[in-house]
Every structure is written in structure tokens, then in C-alpha cells.
């Protein structure tokens, strides 16, 4: 199996580790809670656990990693029954359903940093987002070979971070979670779905990388039920 083979190799090269350590040293400010949810029969759970442990080690204690099994509670809450699922932030405002592999890597790293230093660059919208009366969920469906996707994901993640938990940004890896991609009939990425959490229903907003103001406007409309 190629997966086992890959796992024999070092996940990160020394050069990558140095790059990440330097970046974390310069840019991490506040602690970043990260939960990894794992399950049995999960191809990438071990890989994600190893990766996150390495990242936590490189963060000088700033990344606070916990690993849990997906129990009924999580199943009910997240509507997924397998791992890996990664939750980032005090309010679990950023979620990765599936692994941030391939092109997603750099945006994942940037998201950890932004969760820590809150430099999301959306100060002008922060008040409006924090005042949302309903929680909005952004699902960005991606593949690891799409170079445009991490830009869409990072925009969504920044909005979630700025919203202080009112918006949840979920990056869904389509090959690991085909059932979610199928639910929205996704055949091209990035596809962005916006939902209001209660009741849990949504619609495809756009298939492309949106501008931040477009996405925020759409979120504000969805929240008031337009």
C-alpha cells in the first residue's frame, strides 16, 4: 500500500521543519487549541496525528493538541462518522473534514497562525460578523491537487476567525469524504456551500475563489434568512 510506504518516510523534511519552526516562532502569539478526531478504518488518521504532533512540537507549546475518538456526541454535532476531522480554535471555528494534503498545506499552516495572532485582516467586518444572530457554516469542498482551493479555504477560515465562533469554516477533502461532495453534486472545486446551522440546510454559493466581501455579504444574507 502506498500509504504505508509513504509513512515509512519522514512526514516532513528537515527543511520544512526549519521553515515551520521559524514561522511559528515569529508569528504565533496566543495558544492555539487543536482537536484531532479519529476513528477506526481511517486511512489518514495516523498520518494526521503524526503531522499534528510534529507541528505541536515545533510550536514551543503554543499548539495545544488533543486527540479524541469520534463518539456519538461528535457524530451528532458534526454530522460525520469517521476521521480525520481537525478542529481549530477556542470555538472550533475552523474545521478540516479530511486531511489538509497537497495544495492545502500552506493555508492550513497560515490558519494556525491566524488563529493565534488574530491578524485576519477583516477588522472592518468583525463587528457585523460577531453580531450575527444565527450561526453560519461555510463548507469549502476541495481536492489536494487544486491550487486555487486553499485561497478559497483561507478566505473562509479568516472570516470564521474574525467572527469569534459565529461562522464555522469547514474545509472538506472530497476524495476522503465523497458522500459530502456527492450531497452537493460537486464535480468541480472549490465549491462553497453556505448553511444556517439550525435547521441544518444549505445551498451552493459559488464554484470558484470568491472575494472576501462577496463571501461576507452572502453570509450576512444567509444569516438573516434571505
Amino acid at each position, binding site marked *: 500500500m502506498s500509504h504505508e510506504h509513504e509513512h515509512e518516510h519522514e512526514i516532513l*523534511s528537515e527543511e520544512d521543519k526549519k521553515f515551520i519552526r521559524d514561522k511559528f516562532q515569529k508569528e504565533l502569539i496566543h495558544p492555539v487549541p487543536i482537536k484531532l478526531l479519529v476513528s477506526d478504518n481511517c486511512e489518514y488518521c495516523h498520518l494526521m496525528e503524526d503531522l499534528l504532533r510534529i507541528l505541536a512540537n515545533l510550536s514551543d507549546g503554543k499548539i495545544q493538541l488533543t486527540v479524541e475518538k469520534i463518539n456519538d456526541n461528535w457524530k451528532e454535532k458534526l454530522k460525520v462518522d469517521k476521521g480525520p476531522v481537525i478542529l481549530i480554535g477556542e470555538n472550533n471555528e475552523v474545521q478540516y473534514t479530511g486531511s489538509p494534503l497537497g495544495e492545502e498545506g*500552506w493555508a492550513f499552516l497560515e490558519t494556525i497562525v491566524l488563529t493565534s495572532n488574530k491578524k485576519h485582516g477583516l477588522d472592518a467586518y468583525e463587528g457585523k460578523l460577531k453580531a450575527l444572530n444565527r450561526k453560519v457554516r461555510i463548507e469549502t469542498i476541495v481536492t489536494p491537487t*487544486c491550487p486555487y482551493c486553499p*485561497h478559497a479555504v483561507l478566505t473562509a477560515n479568516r472570516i470564521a476567525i474574525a467572527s469569534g465562533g459565529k461562522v464555522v469554516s469547514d474545509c472538506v477533502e472530497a476524495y476522503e469524504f465523497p458522500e459530502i461532495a456527492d450531497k452537493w453534486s460537486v464535480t468541480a472545486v472549490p465549491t462553497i456551500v453556505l448553511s444556517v446551522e439550525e435547521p441544518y440546510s444549505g445551498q451552493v454559493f459559488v464554484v470558484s475563489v470568491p472575494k472576501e466581501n462577496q463571501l461576507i455579504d452572502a453570509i450576512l444574507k444567509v444569516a438573516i434568512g434571505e
Partner: protein
Amino acid sequence: MLLVNEYMSTKTDVVIIGGGPAGLAAGIYTSRLGLETILIEKTALGGQVAVSPFIENYPGFTMISGAELSKRFIEHAELMGVEFRVPEEVIKLELSSETKIVKTNKDTYEADAVIIASGASRKKLNVPGEKEFAGKGVSYCAVCDGSFFRGKVVAVVGGGNTAVSEALHLTGLVKKLYVIHRRDDFRAEIALKQRLLDSPNVTQLWNTVVERIEGDTTVRRLVLRDLKNNKQYEIEVDGVFIAIGYTPNSKIAADAGVAVDKEGYIIVDKRQETNIKGVYAAGDVTGGIMQIGVAVGEGIVAAMSAFEHVTGGWYAKKKKLKAVRIDFEKFKEKEEHEKREEEKSLFKFKL
């Protein structure tokens, strides 16, 4: 009374618009020549190359994935000191004065020279159903979306190198592949064409155009017309990839007075200079032969011309250049790392 500008603008020697091969090559050169260089890219660095399934005609690389080649271009430009602004979108250019003003959605830049390398976007088919089924079976990126069609029936529309490369990428994934082309032969290189014609799961539909894309929640069929007998017929497909050519991203430049031809490609002279002094263009946005090597070459010419413009020529010393010190230790580390790394890394942590 003290007058304060609404915003502070960022001053630099050169602004490059676009982060594909032309822009990155230009940036490598202007940086090495000592010009402060800011490169603005609205989506992802790498340009069209980043989503090319494979490249076999860029000298020095018998076979390299587009993702890998673009990664090398990006790293090279970064190492030489190009400052990237990504994602950032240019919304307006003011080019008539000696100082060129580049306004983006985030900042305003003042530069002595501007290199436009904004590339070209995939042309749309402009048939009913295309817009409606975008992302529901209609796609423009086989590398991004190909795997959604594993074991399915798919069509590629087009006959150039892009269409045939995408088709070759898809043959390994799909059950059956139609390649629909309005002529009776591909324009693609024979090296690509032959491999496609030899693929067992490919059916060519020559002299054929797509008239409609139909389906329910996703694409189900294409309504085609055979141009030889003028008969309309249908084929059942699960998806369609459109690769019928490109349209230049030149509107903002044209609005600022840069001369374009009737198709919208920016007109340049041998030095890659446009009709406006100090404004250069390179790569796909100038039309002609759209190849990575050509884009790189044009980017280099534009960079050298911009250098002469900004400094007044090699010995004029009109401008004090910044000292260029490249971190060769980083170079060495990178080379050693590349030697060690035999297979592609699972994670890509740098932009």
C-alpha cells in the same frame, strides 16, 4: 493646513501584474538587477502552468508536472527577492505619468515601471447549459476536478495542446472519453496527439461542435452537431471539460490606455514595451505562441527593458540600485534537500 492623503501608497521600482511564468521570470531578472520588485497575483501563483497535468517541452525537463514546475518558478523568484502580494487584485491602472500607479483591492503602489503579465483565461463555449452546469459536470481544470469522474464517461472539447494534455490526463481515470473538435485534426503537437489517438478508451468526434449541455442535477448529455452532414445528435456523458482556447486578461490595461489588438491581446514591440513608455507586457496576455518557454523569454525581455527604463541604461546610474545579496546558504540547503527528496512531498507548506 496639513494635507494628508487618504492612504499611503507603497513605492517600488517595478510592479509586475500576474504570477505565471512570464511574471515570475520577469521578477527573477528585475530583482537580480537590483530593482525593488512587487508581484501582484489575484488568485494563485503559477498561472496556467500550475494546473497543467504534465509538461514535456520545457527545455531541461523531459517530463515534469505543471504543479512542480510552477513551484520551482515560485521558489526561484522568492529566493531572488521578489515580494509577492497574493491574493490581491488590480482594479485600476494610471499609467500616463512617469510614475505609474497600480491600485488593488488592498493597496496602492507607485512604480517607475509596470510589467503586465496577467495571462489569459479559458474561453467559455457560450452554449446553453454551460453556465447552469458549471461545477455540476462542466469543468475547466482536469487536474483539479478529474478524479470526480473516475470510471465515468466524459468529454473534452477542443483540439490544441491544452485540450489534448487534459484528455491524456483523464484517459487514466475515466471509463470512456470523447474528444470533440470542430476540425478534422488536432492542432496539438504530434507527440501528444499520437498518444491520445493510441489510447484505447478514447473516441474522437471530428468536425463536431457542442450545441447544448443538458442534464438534471448534473450533466447527463451533450447535444452535438456534425458539421459535415449538419446532423444533430446526442451523447450521454457525466461531465465535460472545456479547453477551446484562451481570452486575454487585458481589460484593466486597455481601460488605462494600453493598446490591444482586435482580440484584446496587448500589442508590444521587440522590447516588450506597450504603446505607453515604461509599461511592458509579456506572456499569454500578448497573444502569439502561448508556451511556457515563450512566456519566460518575454518576461526576461520585459524585465531588461524595464531595467533600462528605470535606471537610464547600464552606466547611466540614474537610480541607486539596492544591494542584492542572495542567501546562497539557503540555495545549498535547497539543493541538498532536493537530492534527498526522491518522491514528491505529501505536504506543501509554502505558497
